[in-house]
């Protein structure tokens, strides 16, 4: 009897995680190990790593999205690889190298289509989420940035070289998307975000000052330029890493936006797109993420200030805390209800877990040069 139990336990340990161990995935996540080309599967409740999925190629700047059942992830690698992994069995399910150089992707609101934004060749390719077979290929003649899923099987993307926004509508015929192209958006869009309600697509410009909002509720979509001359009076500082916009968040009717070439956070009234305040920061902001309760915005930085984090009060716009988790703080991911935050500290090969209120370190996980951290609750959010 005893022997049997021991054997059973041994079997469990020896075999790769079996899906029929019956566990939920709502507290799981994936951490990108960019140099090793692997993913670390983590358990938020245990604050521990469960295992690794290996062999995903060049994962610099990799991002991923989740299937609606929170079991599968689609990983977008720099080398054009699109990989579907099963986080329960911790195995690669399928992998295609679909382009020469990719920057990100999105999954449609019905979970059936996965779109990849490519630099080389420039454009978007759309795949069947089940099989990873190519469904649609939309060349755009430019590097593409800021791809997001909009309600109704649509994808929105901006073009770096040509300054356009393209809306692909796959709702009628997945293979022949209806394309709406908005030209003259501005010089060198470098990233974009879609608000959680799927209405406003906001594009950051590198080639000129200002930002652009596209209102997708209007037909045709309405394009509004805002903050056309922020920082005109200040010298441009070098940008050693492009800001990311996916974390820009609407908090208290305000957008908190990382400035480009200024060490500032810009606060913009979401209703009329006017600037209402600025916060001086410790460096060039990369991510400015609202804690899920929207009470604070957490900011990390480009080199040489990428050892720091700053926490900014949404009501007063003042910096509340400056933290120094360690060298190369690349990404932050909040627990869905905001109780803790996970930080990848690339150059120290670890992920640090902090209480978002006391700021105390709650735990640490070893990881090989970690970058992006992605919890499964992303499966149910629009615009990621």
């Amino acid at each position, binding site marked *: 009897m005893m022997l049997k139990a021991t054997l059973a336990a041994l079997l469990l340990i020896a075999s790769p995680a079996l899906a029929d161990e019956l566990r939920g995935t709502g507290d799981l996540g994936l951490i990108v190990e*960019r*140099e090793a080309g692997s993913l670390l599967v983590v358990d938020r409740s245990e604050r521990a790593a469960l295992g690794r999925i290996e062999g995903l190629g*060049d994962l*610099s*700047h990799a991002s991923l999205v989740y299937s609606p059942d929170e079991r599968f992830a689609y990983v977008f690698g*720099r*080398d054009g690889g699109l990989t579907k992994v099963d986080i329960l069995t911790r195995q690669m399910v399928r992998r295609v190298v679909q382009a020469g*150089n990719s*920057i990100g992707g999105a999954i449609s609101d019905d979970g059936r289509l996965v779109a990849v934004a490519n*630099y*080389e060749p420039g454009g978007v390719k759309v795949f069947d989420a089940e099989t990873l077979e190519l469904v649609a290929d939309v060349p755009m003649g430019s*590097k593409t940035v800021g791809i997001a899923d909009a309600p109704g099987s649509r994808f929105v993307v901006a073009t*770096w070289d040509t300054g356009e926004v393209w809306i692909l509508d796959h709702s009628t015929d997945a293979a022949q998307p209806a394309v709406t192209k908005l030209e003259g958006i501005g010089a*060198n869009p*470098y990233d974009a975000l879609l608000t959680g309600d799927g209405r406003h697509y906001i594009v950051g410009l*590198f080639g000129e000052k200002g930002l652009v909002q596209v209102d997708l509720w209007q037909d045709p979509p309405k394009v509004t330029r805002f903050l056309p001359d922020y920082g005109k009076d200040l010298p441009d500082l*070098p*940008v*050693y*890493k*492009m800001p990311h916009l996916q974390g820009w968040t609407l908090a208290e009717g305000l957008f908190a936006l990382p400035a480009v070439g200024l060490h500032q956070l810009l606060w913009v009234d979401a209703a009329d797109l006017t600037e209402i305040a600025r916060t001086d920061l410790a460096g060039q902001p990369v991510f400015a993420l609202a804690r899920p309760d929207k009470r604070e915005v957490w900011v990390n930085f480009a*080199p*040489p200030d990428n050892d720091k984090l700053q926490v900014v009060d949404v009501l007063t716009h003042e910096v509340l805390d400056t933290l120094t988790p360690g060298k*190369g703080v690349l990404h932050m991911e909040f627990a869905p209800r905001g109780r803790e935050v996970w930080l990848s500290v*690339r*150059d120290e090969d670890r992920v640090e877990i902090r209480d978002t209120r006391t700021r105390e370190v709650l735990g640490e996980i070893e990881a090989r040069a970690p970058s992006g951290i992605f919890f499964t609750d992303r499966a149910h959010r629009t615009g990621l």
Partner: protein
Amino acid sequence: MARLALLLALLAGTAVAGPPDAARQDQLRHLVRQDCGSCHGLRLTGGLGRPITAGALAGRDVDDLSGVILDGMPGTAMPGWRPLLTEDEARWIADYLLTTETE
């Protein structure tokens, strides 16, 4: 004129400092991989920025490249790294890029 200033600065830099020591070389290799890699790719095969593998840079020289590293390329997203690097370090990186086979 700018070119002359750069040349003088380069010469001055060479006279004052020396080539980076072994520890600093490690840091510079790390910087190339991680920070240049932000735009040019971890394997330097390109991203928002163009590929900067030895093959892609064939025909360029150290002076030319170290100038780009230090002062950036106006009108593009390439920033000048002068606030973070000495001229000798930029030359070391230029040479490293031109002579290292990336995987």
